[in-house]
């Protein structure tokens, strides 16, 4: 067993180890399908303490749906797309809501989209475009993605538009299936999006989940991974870019309950502008039964201007000594002037040098995005972000 911890880096500050924070096991985390089983959060609760509750459009406080988000699925042959009513027995199998907004979404959606990816086959990418209900509107949704045994598939979920939207997204990854998901949050400036992703991995299943969050007033995404059999492998990647006034929050939870499973979490964010705020909470729980687990999680934040704030809290709980390895690292740093000097000293103008450094920072995530169109779009979006602030 090897447990590694922070890797100190030049120009970066290490994260705190939660000294002084109340210690509660992730295993005791409350979950329920019943919205009333959750108290209305006030913002002081551990899981809400970073979230600007006043900007949540009352999603946490019983806001009724005033509209619906438009869900459009572009699927290749062999992939089944259904719109189903509440009560379809397939819904809710991948996970149980872990906070009040997720339970509210579960209680409030009127119809769900179910995408079934054929087993024993390789499918072309499926694109699901979710467009908000419009400015000032509230909508709830539910999406269920099932990759059957030995399926090999890519699903891109593209969120855009205006309004408040809360939803649950399920990923059931069958035994030996390979599911790649890219979830893009490219909302309009007013949008509020609170979303829970529940991934349930079968034996020897492989799940690659990439989150890209660029637009929206408040985006809070909670991806949870559970394993039902041994040999599951989850890779969670995230890339976010917060501008002035944006709150982008990502809370990953890997629940290692089966033996010989792996997980790797890499989230990277850049921040610029007054009151740009990002939050990354990375929980990993290795339960007693999860022998032979191998896990690592990493969060890096690059603060480009004054007035921006990045919170980063990794939590690793280990209940068995029989693991392959576990570690985490987190650091938030300002723009490295030495890198800038070095590039400029080779004749590269300052604005170009800055872009090189930021692109370099995101490079390892971009490299792993298997869908070329998404990668190109993302590179263009990062360029646009950098141009907006004039760096």
């Amino acid at each position, binding site marked *: 067993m090897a447990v590694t911890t922070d890797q100190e880096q030049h120009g970066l500050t290490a994260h705190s180890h939660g000294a002084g924070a109340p210690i509660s096991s992730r295993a005791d985390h409350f979950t329920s399908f019943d919205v009333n089983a959750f108290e209305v959060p006030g913002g002081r609760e551990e899981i809400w303490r970073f979230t600007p509750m006043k900007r949540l459009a009352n999603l946490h406080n019983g806001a009724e749906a005033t509209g619906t988000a438009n869900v459009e699925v572009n699927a290749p042959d062999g992939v089944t797309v259904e719109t189903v009513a509440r009560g379809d027995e397939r819904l809710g199998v991948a996970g149980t809501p872990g906070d009040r907004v997720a339970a509210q979404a579960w209680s409030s959606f009127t119809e769900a989209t179910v995408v079934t990816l054929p087993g024993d086959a390789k499918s072309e990418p499926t694109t699901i475009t979710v467009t908000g209900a419009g400015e000032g509107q509230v909508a709830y949704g539910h999406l269920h993605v099932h990759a059957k045994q030995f399926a090999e598939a890519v699903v891109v979920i593209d969120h855009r538009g205006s309004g408040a939207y809360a939803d649950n997204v399920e990923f059931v990854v069958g035994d030996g299936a390979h599911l790649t998901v890219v979830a893009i949050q490219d909302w309009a400036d007013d949008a509020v999006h609170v979303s829970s992703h529940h991934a349930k991995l079968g034996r020897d299943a492989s799940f690659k989940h990439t989150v890209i969050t660029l637009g929206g007033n408040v985006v809070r995404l909670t991806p949870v991974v559970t394993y039902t059999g041994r040999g599951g492998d989850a890779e969670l990647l995230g890339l976010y870019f917060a501008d002035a006034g944006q709150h982008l929050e990502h809370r990953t939870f890997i629940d290692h309950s089966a033996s010989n499973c792996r997980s790797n979490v890499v989230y990277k964010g850049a921040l610029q502008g007054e009151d740009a705020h990002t939050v990354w909470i990375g929980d990993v729980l290795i339960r007693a039964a999860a022998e032979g687990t191998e896990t690592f999680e990493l969060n890096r934040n690059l603060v480009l201007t004054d007035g921006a704030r990045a919170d980063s809290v990794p939590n690793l709980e280990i209940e068995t000594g029989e693991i392959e390895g576990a570690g985490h690292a987190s650091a938030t740093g300002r723009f490295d002037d030495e890198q800038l000097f070095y590039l400029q*000293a080779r004749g590269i103008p300052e604005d170009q040098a800055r872009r090189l450094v930021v692109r370099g920072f995101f490079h390892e995530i971009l490299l792993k995005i298997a869908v070329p169109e998404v990668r190109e779009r993302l590179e263009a979006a990062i360029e646009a972000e950098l141009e907006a602030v004039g760096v």
Partner: protein
Amino acid sequence: MATLEIKDLHVSVNTDEGSKEILKGVDLTIKAGETHAIMGPNGSGKSTLSYAIAGHPKYDVTSGTVLLDGENVLDMTVDERARAGLFLAMQYPVEVPGVSMSNFLRTAATAVRGEAPKLRHWVKEVKEAMSELDIDPAFAERSVNEGFSGGEKKRHEILQLGLLKPKVAILDETDSGLDVDALRVVSEGVNRYKQSGDVGVMLITHYTRILKYISPDFVHVFAGGRIAESGGPELADQLEAEGYVKYIGKPEAAGIA
């Protein structure tokens, strides 16, 4: 004919405890075709001189001028200085994660040359330059300096020197931390650059051993933030024999060494 003129240069460094003067009136002129060795004990201000000329933001020029072919370098941004023909081979090259060496080299060459080099010629040019410095071609796809050994970093500094072909090159302790083979390879790279045109070289070093490979026309002893003595190559031999005692023994230098 390139000329770098440093006149009465005073430079302070910004530290947490405030500003501290490091360079106390440096005068030095380097003409094309000349190699000047700047030798001095640790802490004498040699590196400060190189960084101040390159324009590192940590250093404040409080008075004096630095002219490159009559143009005041101190009025230029860091990248303008490089494009004007100055090059600093750094003692501690900086790692830039996620930016490949090949992308970096091409971006720099494009900036310095004023146009993007033709891809076909460029690939060949880089390949040859790397091979001359015994650099494995695989380094082209690695992030700039990331995880490179000290020797690998120095080879890549000289690689950049060869590709960017500045008018005046400042080599800041390029020899430090090199084994004998690497020292020879790196020195050959510098000599190729010298032979490539009318260029000036400021070779900053603590030790005399690199001067066996790169012959200086002038040797300057740097102590107490200024040039304490200048001479020909024979001055290096004297330093080899006697060390820096004579210079750091001076009262005004004692507090700095």
